[in-house]
């Protein structure tokens, strides 16, 4: 599904430049659950942003489902993103002004799905995440675990092929964290590809494979048994 070859990303400021990704290579197969680990500043998040088409690389190749997307413009990226990719963030990033239902509904609105269809799909996914009873609440009224469940619900409502999770349990206690990891594992078992950045060895163990990064490169891959 994803094939990255010799990917380079350099951040420049007026005084200095930082190489975030240095000739990185990575392949993720359809249906895989990959955890990315590494110390702060090793380029994990940059990688995730490029995978999520939120950022573009300076050089190298990025094949998404066999299509070269490294040179896509904003519009193309946005369109690809909303159809195929779901995001889960460490800080949930729910929109405070929207209710649970509306937060989850938002990707479908941007996809142009009809209202009746939207309702059906949102209810379906809320039910699956067991937060149906909270659908009229606003994010501030929920616990961290519940918020993250909403975030996951939002990420999967448009049935993406790929879920990108950036330290999804980083702001949660362990029991809530485990719940979220169970959710992701379930999704993966139903066929969704997942790439997760994490600092937690515990969380990483839920994945099929751990990619370890250092200084913008992959240094090691552990296959989980």
């Amino acid at each position, binding site marked *: 599904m994803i094939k990255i070859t010799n990917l380079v990303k350099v951040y420049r400021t007026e005084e200095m430049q930082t190489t975030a990704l240095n000739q990185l290579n990575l392949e993720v197969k359809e249906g895989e659950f990959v955890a990315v680990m590494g110390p702060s500043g090793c380029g994990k*998040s940059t990688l995730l*942003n490029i995978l*999520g088409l*939120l*950022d573009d690389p300076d050089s190298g190749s990025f094949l998404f489902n066999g299509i070269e997307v490294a040179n896509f413009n*904003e*519009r193309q990226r*946005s*369109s690809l*993103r*909303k*159809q195929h990719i*779901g*995001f889960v*963030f460490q800080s949930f*990033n*729910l*929109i*405070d*002004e*929207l209710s649970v239902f*509306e937060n989850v509904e*938002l*990707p479908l*609105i*941007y*996809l*142009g799905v009809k209202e009746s269809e939207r309702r059906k799909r949102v209810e379906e996914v809320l039910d699956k995440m067991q937060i149906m009873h909270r659908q009229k609440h606003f994010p501030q009224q929920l616990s961290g675990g519940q918020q993250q469940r909403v975030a996951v619900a*939002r*990420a999967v409502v*448009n049935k993406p092929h790929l879920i990108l999770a950036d330290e999804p349990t980083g702001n949660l206690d362990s029991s809530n964290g485990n719940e979220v990891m169970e959710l992701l594992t379930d999704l993966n078992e139903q066929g969704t590809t997942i790439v997760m950045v994490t600092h937690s060895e515990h969380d990483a163990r839920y994945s099929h494979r751990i990619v370890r990064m250092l200084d913008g490169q992959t240094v090691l891959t552990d296959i989980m048994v």
Partner: protein
Amino acid sequence: MLKNYFKSAYRSLLKQKSFSFLNIAGLTFGLTACLLIALFVWDEQQYDKFIPEGEQVYRVYIERTTVSEGTENMAFTPPMFATTLEQEFPEVEEALRFFNIQWKVLFEANGKQIYEGSGIAAESGFFEFFPLHFVFGSPKNALADPTSIVISTSLAERYFGTENPVGKEILIDNDPFQVKGVYQNNPKFHLAVDYIIPLQTMGFPEERMQSWTWQNLFTYVKVKKGVNGENLEAKFQKLVEQDVHPILKEGGMTYLPQFQPLENIHLYSADFKYDMAVRGNITYVKGLSLIALFILVIACFNFVNLATAKSLKRAKEVGVRKSIGASRNQLILQFLSESILLAFISVLISVLLTLLLLPWLNDFTGKQMALPVLNPLVLLLLVSLSIIVGVIAGLYPAMVLSGFQPVKVLKGGSAGNVQPGKIPWLRHGLVVLQFAVSVLLIISAIVVYQQVEFLNNKDLGFEKEQIMFFPMRGENMVGNYEAFKNQLLQSPGVSSVSIGYGFPGDMVAGDGIIVPRGGEHKRYSVTQLMVDHDYIKTLGVEVIAGRDFSKEITTDATEGFIINETAVKELGFGTPEEALGQPLHWEVWVDEPADSLKKGQVIGVVKDFHYKSLYDEVEPTVLQIFPPAFWKVAVKMKTADIAATLEHVKTTWNSFSPEYPLEYGFLDDSFEQMYKAEDKLRALLWIFTGMAIFVGCLGLFGLAAYAAERRKKEIGIRKVLGASVQNIVVLLSQDFVKLVLISLLIASPIAWYLMQGWLQDFAYRIDIGWWVFGLAGFAAVAIALLTVGFHAIKAALKNPVKNLRIE
């Protein structure tokens, strides 16, 4: 999709209450000012639009050129204009003349006596030119009979209430007239008259009605359909140049007739002399339109300013929306729906405010304006206004916000495009512009205030206080004015009485005076004050050479002239002392015998005194005793027991002219009336200054909020390192003080230039002192500090740990 936009827009407005409040307040404010001004401007352009075939109607006026006064536009025309236009030009369908009855006349009907001041004597075609709506009677032949009168509804109500007065009698100065019709007062008609009588009633002699030089009538002309007014004007001008100019040149004056389209009369006659039309001023209309536009743009700028300032807070939302698939256009639409919703709310509130303020504006402008909110066209306009304002205000913030990179904004607090050390030119520029306008207005307000104070307090060269003033009425009083005067003086409350023609603040006569010098008779144009022996004493005018008129010296009444200082210079007499004894001749104002000359000499010189407004320079003035012109009475009263004195004046009046009621005023009141326009300007300027300051503060408030937000980490670090609250407040405020100082630099020269121009209209004016700019600058800085201080102190008092933890 749209529903969703408006839903989230509505929620985010509720969420950020203070921000929404500021935005709505700013926009509402700007919109209300705009709506009020727009109503005024629209109303000003509605004059005479109700007249059918009005595009064929022109008013004829003259451009008069004299040596002493240059070229002036005058609404008065000679009678021969209409006659010639009708007889010589087949293009003309009809011409109309009327005479403005400028003085108050006594109306008596139904047991009521009232002095009426606004009437005309018109030719019978008046209602064909101006088909006013008749409530009673018919316009047909309404002015045919010399004793007929047509009155307005408001005049009719004063005497007859709501009943039909047609056929009833009204006595005008004891002459009977019969009411032929009642027309509805139309506030959109340029002639605000309450009664119309036939022109023939005035009894102008036939030879005067064939004059090219006696200019006392208003002339209108209606051309045939399809006739080009300008061509006709040119042809008529040519005729006047050929046939009339030779006659005119003898009198030292020439004129050219001009055609003014009916719809231009109200707005394009501001500088006309002797005009009686209800006049606006196109300059004010244009200036106000510009101000309205400016206020609206500034209010939109503030929205831009506040919204971009708040963008940091919304960056995360943008990141999230983008990461789940929102395209940039969708985000722009979302933010635009927010600003349109906001603009819509503001429009709603400002419509309410406008309705509330309209009575006040109507009072201030003397108009009867209304905002027909239920009119579909007005509704459509208001809705489009919301959309336009929403888009203008929201587009830039929407572009900025939607341009945020999700990668950057989702990571940390910074919106990504803010770089340290980079100056936000747009936002700073807007604040400078707004404050420049505020400073400009503050300076103007101070200058106007000073000038008005100057006008009110300048030594006029005479004492205008405690002088009761009224015209004589009735033959008995006019014929026995000496006896009347003596009886007035009987009261211990009356210190002196003067009867004459030419009192300060009242009408004065301009006429020629002849100076015989070395066999040559040179004619000068001067102001003639027809006075009695007590004029100088009553008004407290200072005699600087020679003496006042004296009753003991009988030749003073027949040969004495007193002139003012300006006349001494203009007539070439050298010094006041040298002027004494100089001969003067005057062509006496009587019809028989023609050309009789009053020959006399200068017996005294008075210090210049301002009998006209301070717009006009003191003119060369001649005072002489000429009883046939005596008309007005000035009674100088002592301060003690004024009530008793007034009672005495009334009793005396009734013993001479019981058939007329006494109507009096005070000289200082009529003098203040002359500066009414300046008083209104002063009030308006205060209002605009207040508005500009408020709007400017809104912008500054937004900018300060933004700066405090952006620098909160810096502030936290500084505080941890030991900075005091004052240090922080100074740190945050100094940038804004700089901006205000820049705006002061920009505004001062412009204000100086504009105010110098305004002051040029006054013959007597103040100098603009440097302290005015200092004061305006100080005020602006103080206001800015107060505004910024709120945020600066709030930021400075925050627990630094909170600010630092966010990163």
